[in-house]
């Protein structure tokens, strides 16, 4: 590394915690998971099986997507959510189906969890007309508005005010719904977040804002890009907040359930720092020189899918063959999706001009 400490003047980030190469860093320390069992959380055995299936689907979908990308079946950016599946799954099970969800570009897991079928998802990655966004959006722009999933967004922090706007409309319409906005730790440095937090609390917007702190913004560890504890951001805006273990689906579920109830009842915003970890590089082109294998392996010991699998077995909800059955079903579904995407047509060239304006005959200036 460069001559960091020998410079008389330097603008190296002061960050929190000391640099300890390879060690688990402060700032992404996982809080203790909930001790509650599924019944006291209000989850049935069927819920657990479905949650397991959902998390496994998200992972296999992305592993297959990565393989297809490497084969050159599609291009563009591919940001994988692998490792973070407990956040999407715990949230979607805790919220009502008509609560609004919006997220950043790491959006495949969210989309699948909110009802984008593996076929629609894979076809979108391939840029096919059968994709959830008709092949116009690609990896970063999955959306399914009929399921209140408002999409993935590519400008870091750009969608945070929009999440506030979804909540504004819900309050305006008095429909009892809330919005939940997810973003990465890198996005907490954007002005958009601060302006939105201020307004959200000022106007009492029924909105959950949740940072998925996976330790890194591209190649920059959280402690190198942002000062102090992220969860404390809420304080300056008089917002309630808490830290959640994002590697444990029960912990996410519990926190989201309680927070959603409070937000709905009081019409007030709430901030969650959900600590999790991304196993893959930032995108497919990232050589990941900024972290060690040991650090990654350390987090993988807390793998959310393995955790739930162990719980299912320890509590005699599923045996090995039951688990295997789910996994094989999912595997087949994902393979079918790849085939579906591969066999689907590209959009017709005339569709280039569709969807620009709401009119049937929009005006173009070419």
């Amino acid at each position, binding site marked *: 590394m460069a001559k960091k400490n020998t410079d008389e003047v*330097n*603008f190296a980030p002061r960050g929190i915690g000391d640099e300890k190469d390879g060690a688990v860093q402060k700032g992404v320390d996982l809080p203790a998971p909930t001790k509650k069992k599924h019944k006291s959380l209000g989850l049935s055995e069927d819920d657990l099986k479905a949650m397991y299936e959902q998390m496994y689907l998200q992972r296999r979908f992305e592993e297959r997507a990565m393989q297809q990308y490497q084969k050159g079946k599609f291009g563009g950016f591919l940001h994988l959510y692998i490792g973070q599946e407990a956040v999407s799954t715990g949230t979607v099970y805790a919220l009502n189906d008509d609560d609004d969800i919006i997220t950043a570009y790491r959006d495949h897991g969210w989309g699948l969890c909110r009802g984008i079928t593996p076929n629609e998802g894979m076809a979108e990655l391939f840029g096919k007309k059968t994709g959830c966004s008709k092949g116009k959006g*690609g990896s970063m722009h999955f959306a399914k508005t009929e399921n209140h999933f408002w999409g993935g967004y590519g*400008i870091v922090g750009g969608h945070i005010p929009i999440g506030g706007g979804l909540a504004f409309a819900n309050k305006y319409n008095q429909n009892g719904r809330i919005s939940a906005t997810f973003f990465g730790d*890198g996005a907490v440095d954007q002005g958009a977040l601060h302006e939105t937090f201020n307004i959200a609390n000022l106007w009492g917007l029924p909105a959950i804002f949740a940072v998925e702190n996976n330790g890194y913004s591209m*190649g*920059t560890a959280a402690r190198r890009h942002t000062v102090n504890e992220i969860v404390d951001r809420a304080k300056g805006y008089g917002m309630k907040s808490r830290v959640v273990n994002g590697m444990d689906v029960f912990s996410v579920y519990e926190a989201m359930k309680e927070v959603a109830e409070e937000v709905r009842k009081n019409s007030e915003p709430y901030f969650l720092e959900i600590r999790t970890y991304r196993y893959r590089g930032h995108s497919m082109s990232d050589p990941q020189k900024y972290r060690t294998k040991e650090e990654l392996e350390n987090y993988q010991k807390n793998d959310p899918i393995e955790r739930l699998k162990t719980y299912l077995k320890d509590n005699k909800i599923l045996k090995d063959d039951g688990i295997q059955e789910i996994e094989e079903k999912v595997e087949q579904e994902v393979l079918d999706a790849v085939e579906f995407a591969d066999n689907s047509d590209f*959009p017709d060239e005339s569709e280039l001009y569709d969807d620009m304006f709401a009119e049937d005959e929009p005006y173009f200036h070419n």
Partner: protein
Amino acid sequence: MAELQFREAIREAIDEEMAREEKVFIMGEEVAEYNGAYKATEGLLDKYGYKRVIDTPISELGFAGIGVGAAMNGLRPIVEFMTFNFAVLAADQIINHASKAGYMTGGQISMPIVFRGPNASAGQLGATHSVAYDSMYAHFPGLKVIYTSEPDDAKGLLKSAIRDDNPVLFMESEQMYGMKGEVSEEEDYIIPIGKGKIKREGSDVTVVAHGKMYHVAKQAAAQLEKDGVDVEIIDPRTVKPLDLPLIVESIKKTNRCVVVDEAHPFAGFAAEIGFLIQREAFDYLDAPVQRVTLPDVNAPFAKNLFDAWLPDAKNVIEAVNKVTYRN
């Protein structure tokens, strides 16, 4: 001459200017420890340390504005944006502040700052990552805009930009960082801002093309040559200030003009050139000026739509056929 990649030419320019002048520093997302998202700043942290090669948070408005303040106060910042698509968040600092502070204070403030980074689309990155911004910034007084097409121009012009006492937007194509080209080995190689270059001499039609579109025009010219059409290509290199005399002189010779631009059509670079030519060279034109641009449509993701969206050599050939009245 040395064969360099685009990114290497940019790195050399920054390196040489940092070595020459202590007041020059660079900051941006992932420029230091990660060595740059597109590796344009590779090795600079090791050489210059944390004082002069500075990683920023994802806070475009904040760090662009900090650059503006530092420039006002005597430093010479190079602000890297991971792409100009993200610089939109900093547009207030660039458009409302960097471009105006000198004028508003009656010349008391000088603004020696360079904002640089990739411009326009790379492959299939979707609508928010594929916009060409050179036309937009050129709209505003007080800003200089450069979008080069070859490593040699990049090196010579970036060095000029860093030495300029005005805010300069220096744009690079995301798809061209790996592209190689001969770069002058002349010591302290400088190309003046505002001078275009005839990159291919021809007598039948003038094609004006800059940035990535220069290479599209070059391809078209090679094809057209086989069909017996002799294309002159002018790369203005700097969008603003624009080397209008060079373009006008060329049209006096060829009497026909096609402008190829990577931006959308309305109120863009191609529209401006079209207007200027009809004003300055109306009597020399044998056909209306044609333009090749993106359509008035956001960038699609699907590969086939993306390819149809981006101007290619075929589009240029069609336009040349129009101005030469060849079917």
